[in-house]
């Protein structure tokens, strides 16, 4: 019961901070709202008793992705003065359209699929051994492909950045 109340509370915080990302007038505030939003998603994973996924969420999105965004902001912005950048232009209606369609698709898929091992009100606690079993045994080849893909993307990014440097 208490977990359920907390879950909905966190869901409300997540939605509110997601709106904050779009509505904030300063881009730094947007980035910080994004961090809060992603962090709260991690906390909601905790309530669903998938600790591993929650910690991955904190590590990757909280500690790495958003930090990269903040780092990019730091390297490109002026140090002092709070200039207000208008980030919502005339493309806003199209943005709403895309977001709405995406939301409809995701919700439809989530409710339409019959998930394997689906149990109501009783989330299963998945141990890290099971996760690693599935990831490295059943899906070993896709895992390696994704790793190679990321490596290629990394090397490509370095090459692109270097070319600009040489000119």
């Amino acid at each position: 019961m208490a977990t359920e109340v907390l879950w909905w509370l966190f869901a409300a915080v997540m939605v509110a901070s997601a709106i904050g990302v779009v509505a904030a007038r300063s881009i730094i505030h947007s980035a910080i709202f994004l961090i809060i939003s992603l962090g709260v998603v991690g906390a909601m994973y905790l309530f669903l008793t998938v600790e591993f996924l929650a910690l991955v969420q904190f590590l990757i999105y909280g500690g790495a992705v958003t930090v990269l965004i903040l780092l990019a902001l730091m390297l490109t912005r002026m140090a002092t003065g709070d200039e207000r950048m208008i980030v919502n232009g005339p493309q806003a209606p199209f943005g709403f359209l895309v977001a709405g369609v995406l939301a409809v698709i995701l919700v439809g898929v989530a409710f339409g699929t019959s998930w394997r091992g689906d149990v109501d009100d009783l989330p299963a606690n998945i141990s890290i051994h099971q996760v690693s079993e599935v990831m490295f045994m059943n899906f070993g080849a896709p895992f390696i492909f994704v790793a190679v893909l990321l490596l290629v993307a990394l090397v490509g990014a370095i090459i692109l950045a270097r070319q600009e440097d040489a000119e």
Partner: protein
Amino acid sequence: MDFGQAFFGIAWIDAIIRVVIVVLVMTIVVVYLTYGERKVVARFQQRLGPTKTGRAGLLQGFADALKLVSKEDLRPRNADRWVFEFAPFMTFIPVFTILIVLPFAADWGVRNLALGVFFVFAILGLNIVGIMMAGLGSGNKYALLGGVRAAAQMISYEIPLVLALLAVVIVARGEIDGVQINGTLNLQELILLQETRPFILIQPLAFVIFFMAMLSELHRAPFDIPVAESEIVGGYFVEYSGIRWSMFQLSEYASLWAFSIFGSVVFLGGWEFPMGSDWGWGWQLFLTGVKSLLFIFLVMWVRATVPRLRIDQLMNFCWKVLIEVSFLLIIVNGVFVLYDWPEEILALVNWGATVLFLGILYYRGVRRAKTSDYVGTYRQEEMSLA
């Protein structure tokens, strides 16, 4: 021991009481760490350090804390108000959260999580956010530079830190109560597996990498580039004063303490080695304390003796040396685990690699130290004029 028992057996009351105890202990430890650091560094520099407040200056930390709390809480006019004011909390909360999983004795941690090691470095990653908020929100270019440096450094050094820990986790094998364990992330199980030998004996290279990355994560000399006083006037917390500044200090020392206990758990055997389960909780707490103090003293020793690196040297050392070595370590450990080769040979290989690694570092350091043939730029101009 279950504190919830007295309150109708409610589990979260037990958790809250344990958290409160740990936080109180942490506060006192932090106060005495500031005192200890000043005394140790003073000894290295042939000074006396604090002597006046209390006997041998023992109350100096409390006096400083009182002074800091009563100071005015300033905020620059062009600072971003909310970002500026919440930044100290964002640095402190992750450090505070880590304390939940640290085991101090056999049944004395707040909670024993199955993913303890992973929890520690996942939560530690969030520490950067607060530092970057401080850098961005202060409206000061030195703070911004400090924030950029801190972020770049902490993201980079997190990789070898995590890899070195994973290398230990891979080879952590053995039997606990008749159950065979092949690699675990649980901190209590990691300790129990070290009953006969601490992991530093079989993974010294991982310890060396961990210690270097830890110095960098804590912004300790020689990696204290984000907070370099002589270059950027103190770094990301340059605009802070009073209670908010002391929160940054508090989180810095608290994370030093947390890292020391974590390192002593993973590498030195925590409360178990030697004779932990036989001699009771007093000896266990003593072992935890002594081992973490050893870590802390090592950090202060390095701080007092090694000069600060340049930012490019720091980055090169991480990306071109530490990450490769730690990947190599994981591959070697994986091969050993896959073919089930004995632990003694693994230890031997690892000691060889450690000696080689430190030897190469030492050789390069000694070779570079020769500057007798170099002439500074201004001297060259002088000589060409002459």
